[in-house]
């Protein structure tokens, strides 16, 4: 530590270069964090599932419906705790661009099956009493600037009522219990939906979600259900929630892969540029280092100087991660509706810091060893 002044004096020798090197380091780390966050967002669905939930969809096609009457039969299966059902409402708010998921829910079992979505009791009770009520996720509330008590029109053409908008009263807001929980959903009452849709659609639901007692029972229960409806008009397909989510995530296909690959290439290019600048600054000072060695500094101390300098730059460069911390919520809002909300996780930050330190060491090692090994006479002669 007694050499820290020397290290800092060397660092500030060329201020423009110092600032630029730290700057490009920060940019690389910012990008690293951003890509980590995007990567997370693409894979989000598979991460926030519960091990003791099963999803039942129509075997023919996920957009086909099933009768509500299956529910009682499913409930009778040993090991099934709760059953809830949903329908896809498929509406938009004002403009087709304002897309967000709306689910027709079963208020009776919603909170038992999805305990991670928290709604204050008074809001939930208001919702139960209001046929045209809705409970909306916090991020969708924020996206459209809605407040509790607002009456909002949602337009859907899925249910044969032409161009007419459905009106809902926002009775409450739900929050996820973990930051990665989906806060974009819009829940509306089954009863209101059921009484409004035409005859052919009544009594039909989109998918069931079950809460089971023991995750180990999942394969048995799934098989029992699928066998039970094998020859029914609508055959079922029962999957664990994680398999269901994973099949969606996989369908994003190569987009995620491409973005991440490109990002990785970019990250390493930036690091190469940065590392090289650091190496140049050591090479330029060869005669000076030779003088230090001539007056008795050991080889290791010289390596220590160079490493120390490089690590200081790397650590200050972590400012980029802080910037990412500040910028991600803004970017998330800008991309609402395109991607699930972006979240910066501690893992990404830790990985970023580690990457920074690794590059700091890597950039210092080559010129550092060169400086250690050089012969004082040769170096001094080069001037």
């Amino acid at each position: 530590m007694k050499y820290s002044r020397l290290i800092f004096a060397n660092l500030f020798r060329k201020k423009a270069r110092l600032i630029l090197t730290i700057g490009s380091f920060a940019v690389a780390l910012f990008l690293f964090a951003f890509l980590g966050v995007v990567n997370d967002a693409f894979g989000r669905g598979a991460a926030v599932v519960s091990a003791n939930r099963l999803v039942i969809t129509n075997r023919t096609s996920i957009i086909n419906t099933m009768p509500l009457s299956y529910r009682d039969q499913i409930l009778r299966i040993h090991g099934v705790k709760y059953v809830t059902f949903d329908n896809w409402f498929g509406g938009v708010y004002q403009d087709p661009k304002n897309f967000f998921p709306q689910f027709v829910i079963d208020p009776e079992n919603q909170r038992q099956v999805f305990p991670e979505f928290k709604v204050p009791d008074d809001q939930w009770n208001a919702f139960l009493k209001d046929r045209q009520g809705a409970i909306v996720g916090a991020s969708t509330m924020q996206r459209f600037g809605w407040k509790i008590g607002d009456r909002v029109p949602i337009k859907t053409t899925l249910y044969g009522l032409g161009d007419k908008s459905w009106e809902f009263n926002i009775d409450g807001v739900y929050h996820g219990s973990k930051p990665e929980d989906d806060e974009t959903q819009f829940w509306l009452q089954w009863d209101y939906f059921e009484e409004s849709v035409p005859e052919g659609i009544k009594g039909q639901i989109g998918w069931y979600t079950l809460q089971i007692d023991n995750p180990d029972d999942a394969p048995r229960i799934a098989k029992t259900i699928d066998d039970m409806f094998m020859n029914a008009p609508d055959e079922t397909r029962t999957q664990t929630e994680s398999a269901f989510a994973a099949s969606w995530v996989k369908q994003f296909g190569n987009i995620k892969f491409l973005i991440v690959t490109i990002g990785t290439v970019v990250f390493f290019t930036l690091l190469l540029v940065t590392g090289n600048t650091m190496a140049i600054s050591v090479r330029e000072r060869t005669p000076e280092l030779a003088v230090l060695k001539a007056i008795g500094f050991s080889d290791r101390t010289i390596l220590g100087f160079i490493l120390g300098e490089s690590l200081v730059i790397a650590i200050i460069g972590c400012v980029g991660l802080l910037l990412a911390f500040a910028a991600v919520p803004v970017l998330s809002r800008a991309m609402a509706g395109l991607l699930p909300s972006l979240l910066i996780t501690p893992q990404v930050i830790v990985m970023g810091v580690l990457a920074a330190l690794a590059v700091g060491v890597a950039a210092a090692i080559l010129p550092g060893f060169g400086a250690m090994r050089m012969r004082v006479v040769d170096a001094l002669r080069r001037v």
Partner: protein
Amino acid sequence: MATKLIGGVLITILAIVALLLILIVVGGILAGLLAPFIGSVPISYNFRSIRARWTSTIVAILGIAGTVGVFVAMLSLARGFRATLVASGSPGNALIMRAGSTTEMMGGITLDSVKLVEDKPGVARSVSGQPLVTHEVVGVIPIPLISTGTDANVQVRGVSSNVLDIRKFVKIVQGRMFTPGLDELLVGSNASKTYEGLTVGNTVNFGGGHWKVVGVFDAGGSSFDSEVWCDEAILNEVLKRPANIFQSATIHLTSPAAFQQFKDAITSDPQLNLEVEREVDYYANQSSTMTELITVLGGIVAAIMAIGAIFGALNTMYSAVSERGREIATMRALGFSSWNVILSFLFEAVIISFIAAIIGCLAVLPLNGLTTNTMNFQTFSNLAFAFKITFDLLLMGVVFALVMGVLGGLLPAVRAAVRPVAVSLREL
């Protein structure tokens, strides 16, 4: 009120700064390009200096080339996605859906409306006098992907048997057309390559039926290539939808110009409540979400990277200037003006960034035509598409590189030119 005022002032100042920056950059690029003609420092000097400092030059080139590559690759991906969907529409076709629908997946139209539409002016007819209209049913079915073995959603389209007369660019490349009334499938060329079991002669099961694959069609790289086609009546039955209800109908018009007349005839008919669009416009709209996502993500990545590359270029040029302090001072002492020195440096920056642009563009060129697939949010189904690198994208990449080069070279150039000659000469 006060916040509005401050906001207004801020925006004005920002606009002025942006304008100045643009002027400087454009001026810089022009000056750099014209340097050999208006400057008096020989250009061979720049080439020699690039050679003498090749390591730092290579790093600057790498930074800029990487940025250009990413920029072009991301944009070509978005272009490719859009092109795939736009290619699905023919200019001479119109598409009708129920009023208010934004995608085919929604809503339905009845056979009666289709019959009314068939008699409207502008509808083309076959030699035998049949109207060229295909009424269609679309659904999604799960079929395993060859690559992962897991189910993905394939768009299945029930079509009328005369569909090939309406979508004339679709050609059967293997096997034959399906027979109306039978459980037979005609699969798109990409679907055949992407999903398990979709080859001629195979049987696949969905919706409780056993479907025989009888043919493969090529739809010229459009979104139909990712679809599976069959008889609409059978598909309606399998998907348990009411008979004689369709989701869309595509109409071949006598000429692209007949569209307006056709549309007016439908909108003025009180019996019909339909959305009429040119097929091309419909598919262009379908691509907007994904195109926007790719462009926004790509834009952010390229912008962050550009900042990094500019830093790299600044660093390279600054060290070039500081290493050459005495050289520059000597040139000034010999009588070259500050302007000549600035021009010379700008020229060097432009050369470096131009080389980088060429390398970056060449590096991504092999991506052109590479097929990839993703989820189309509008239909919840999988869609294959290819990178599409066009000349104007490459040109944009080169311009982007020059901008980065000038931004990175201008400040160091000015610094080189304004340092007092005597001070520089005295330095070691």
